[in-house]
């Protein structure tokens, strides 16, 4: 029994425990124990992984294990992690842990809520540990479907519409993805679904011929890209995030959207390197639009959740942007951005939920001077905002800096112009963040009802402090995590670059 499987096994046991639990206390107990175990496991995994790497273990994936599952179809249960998955697992564990505390007092039906919540987290963990395409796809879909009920039952606002839109768009993406997976599987010989085996088939050159790669690359990239809020498939994201209950927004923006970026990198780019070199310009333009357009849209919103949702579109666009630039620095930055965005957007959504729970409005124009009334939440909100606009010392800066530096390493005009355009989003981010913070928190409170509001409770403080600690930790000491990531990114990017230069023959802008 490989211990990575614990990441799936613990949520399974949690599901069982939740099923059997009677009463709110027992439900909370199961969740706290389970999510703490997961967090502990993730931390231990990170430490052990770094130790192993320091000890000279240079295998591509560590802790690998494999069991044949569907023998006639060459499908196996295969797990293994590299630096990228380790950091994603850590992120997921943190978000699940804090999400548990944020939904502490949710009603009605806390038990059912946590059942679906746990199923979602099982999908996420399973996705990050698997290296078999079938397993990846299965866990990907497991993570998607609980969203429907989580938003539909426990959400607010246009919840029915948003839940349906989100589910159908993401499932539509996964339909393309499935076709792409079949294509990769059969064109690579149909012998294995193992990602590593397909990539290393004949030492460098991909076993899939170039013409076929150019079909499967857009399918898989768009399939995952829908979840990564790729323009023009991002429209589920603002509605979905705005309607979802707090912890679900956190988990969704914080972790689930990372599945998109991770999948794009792990399957679309890694397994289809020639097509990635040839066609990345199309998706670069689209992600460039995501980045700028998301930031611009955030400026004109007044609903707090919509502001953050559009800002997420912008930041997740940067993730895909960094990956598509195909340099080690930019891709490391992209993974760092996944981490940083996951943490800060989760913090943001958590705070928005807490404020909304007190003021019963999310409209920026209706709130004023909250800093005096709830100082803890106010200060945390400012910190989250600063992380979002990329202040040095917080995680956002490290990530965005690496992405832009890495992107600029591509010495041609096309990539450089796009990089410069995307950099504008930082300025726009400052506009919407500072305006929001200024209006909401400062000044004199005019609404009488707001004067009697209370500050955060203990479980809310725990969640918020935990997230802020992580954000500051990455921001102040980025090297350990970025080394961890770039160690794993570098060989993949090298192998992708090996097959050809990033100068595409069909790009009209070159």
């Amino acid at each position, binding site marked *: 029994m490989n211990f990575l499987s614990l990441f799936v096994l613990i949520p399974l046991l949690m599901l069982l425990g939740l099923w059997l639990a009677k009463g709110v206390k027992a439900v909370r107990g199961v969740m706290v124990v389970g999510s703490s175990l997961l967090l502990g496991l993730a931390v231990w995994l990170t430490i052990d992984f770094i130790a192993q790497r320091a000890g000279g273990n240079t295998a591509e994936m560590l802790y690998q294990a494999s069991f044949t599952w569907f023998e006639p179809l060459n499908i196996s249960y295969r797990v293994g992690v590299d630096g990228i998955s380790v950091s994603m697992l850590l992120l997921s564990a943190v978000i699940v842990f804090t999400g548990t505390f944020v939904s502490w007092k949710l009603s009605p039906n806390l038990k059912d809520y946590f059942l679906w919540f746990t199923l979602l987290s099982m999908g996420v963990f399973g996705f990050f540990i698997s290296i078999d395409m079938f397993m990846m796809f299965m866990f990907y879909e497991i993570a998607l479907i609980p969203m429907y009920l989580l938003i539909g039952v426990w959400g607010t606002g246009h*919840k029915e519409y948003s839940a349906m839109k989100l589910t159908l768009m993401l499932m539509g993406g996964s339909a393309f993805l499935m076709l792409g997976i079949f294509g990769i599987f059969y064109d690579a010989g149909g012998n294995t679904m193992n990602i590593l085996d397909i990539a290393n088939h004949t030492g460098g050159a991909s076993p899939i011929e170039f013409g076929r790669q150019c079909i499967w690359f857009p399918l898989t990239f768009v399939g995952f890209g829908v979840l990564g809020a790729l323009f023009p498939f991002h429209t589920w994201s603002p509605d979905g995030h705005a309607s979802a209950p707090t912890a679900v927004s956190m988990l969704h923006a914080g972790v689930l959207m990372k599945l998109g970026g991770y999948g794009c990198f792990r399957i679309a780019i890694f397994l289809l390197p020639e097509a990635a070199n040839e066609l990345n310009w199309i998706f670069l333009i689209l992600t460039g639009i995501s980045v700028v357009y998301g930031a611009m849209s955030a400026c004109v919103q007044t609903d707090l959740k919509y502001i953050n949702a559009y800002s997420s579109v912008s930041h997740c666009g940067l993730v895909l942007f960094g990956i598509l630039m195909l340099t080690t620095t930019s891709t490391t930055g992209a993974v760092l951005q996944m981490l940083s965005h996951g943490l800060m957007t989760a913090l943001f959504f958590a705070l928005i939920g807490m404020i909304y729970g007190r003021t019963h409005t999310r409209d920026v124009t209706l709130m004023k001077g909250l800093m005096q009334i709830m100082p803890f939440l106010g200060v945390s909100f400012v910190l989250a905002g600063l992380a979002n606009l990329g202040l040095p010392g917080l995680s956002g800066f490290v990530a965005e800096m690496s992405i832009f530096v890495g992107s600029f390493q591509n010495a041609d005009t096309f990539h450089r112009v796009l990089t410069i355009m995307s950099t504008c989003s930082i300025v726009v981010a400052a506009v919407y963040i500072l305006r929001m913070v200024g209006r909401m928190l400062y000044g004199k409170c005019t609404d009488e009802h707001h004067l009697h509001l209370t500050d955060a409770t203990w479980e809310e403080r725990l969640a918020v402090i935990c997230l802020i600690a992580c954000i500051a930790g990455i921001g102040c000491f980025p090297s350990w995590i970025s080394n961890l990531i770039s160690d794993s990114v570098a060989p993949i990017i090298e192998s992708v670059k090996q097959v050809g230069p990033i100068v595409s023959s069909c790009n009209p802008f070159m």
Partner: protein
Amino acid sequence: MDYSQFLNMAPELSLLAVILILFVADLFMCTDRKSGRGILNTPLPVVLLTLHTLFCIAPLVCPMFSAQCSMLNAECFGGMYVSSAMALVVKAILNVGTIIVFLTAHEWLKQPEMTNKQGEYYILTLFTLLGMYFMISAGHFLMFFIGLELASVPMTALIAYSKRSQESAEAAAKYILTALFSSGLMLYGISLIYGTTGTLYFDKIAPLMLNGQCSMVNIAALVLFIGGIGFKISLVPFHLWTADAYQGAPTAVTSYLSVISKGAAAFVLFVVLYKVFAPIIDQANVLFFWIIVFSITLANIFAVRQNNLKRFMAFSAISQAGYLVLGVMGATPQGLTAIVYYLLVYMAANLGVFLIISITEQRSGKLLISDYDGYYRTNPRLAFLMTLCLFSLAGIPPFAGFFSKFFMFMAAFKAGFIVLVLIALVNTVISLYYYLLIVKAMYIKPNDNPIAPFRSDGYTRFGLGLCIAGVVLIGIISWFYAYIDQFSFGL
């Protein structure tokens, strides 16, 4: 004549014995004197059918039996009846499905006006099952046709079972007229085959067809054959009876109609294409391409607009039939495995949904989707189980429906029908939409007058237990797929 060859027909003969036992039992123990209620309800038929199932699968699972028993690979009557391991697997699956249908019917048959008609229900149902057995094992078109008719005619009586319901009578009339018309078409197709090749044995037709001198006639025969069998599987454009018949028939009969007869026909379709029409398989693929596209797409679009649950399930069943027939494309062994596996998974999920529809209808008389608003508040467990079944139908992991759809698409992709797989995949999104509509009604929509809480009876619970176990376990435990797969090469 060697009478021992009758032993190769052991599944059919033993099913006949079950029917006769039930018939005699019905004669002598029709009513309980004290309560005046029929006592030939569920236990006896279920136990008998379970024993029969065990008898059927004994040679498959026990090496001790399989050495002596010739059921696995044998022919009788010069090849008119062919017995194969895969056929036995399909028969066993159909048996399990029928058992669950009997469990569904328990509450319905307990009603006062049904008490003196219980025996007929079981006997008629088992006769249709017997017909399907003959279809599955046919090696000759006449045998196949007899099986087909035996499967359709008692079915009409079953659909018309609610004597006082006009809808039921209307449904039966539509069913029998369509059934006869499609039988006529099929007979004409068979006669064309006989006219060109001079034989009706499956194995002997293909080599004679290879001469290719009368290929137009062969294609005409193929089209007519598809017309006949398309009616049974309810593929577009032969589906027009489906919605009305499903809506009018008693719910227990609808659930039988939606799974069992469909499954048998899909298996036979594969066998006939593989054996008889192998020389013109390319033309068949073109036909099936469009049939599948229309079946899936049209049914999905119509399903979105339904409000009656049984009608809704009818369109869902048409669309699922389209997916089921995907495995036929290319007629590969992997496709056959996918069909049988899909059938097994579909059976568990669909019968589960029908169990819940049936028990809700019996307890509250409500059948509309809008009646299910707020179902989750009053009957959370049933709503949860229904959700699991619907997710399985929609192909959501970790439920079995995901695995069966994945493997089905994989088989079709491997056979080279990439565009078709893409269309089918896009359609899964539409189907997810309408399955979610029911989930939405149950979980999200408010209702001032929801279905009152009720307790379901033991039989329904047992049936639901079986279905949910199937929905959850058949996918994750790979044994099922591997087991079916090992038989698909021999056919």
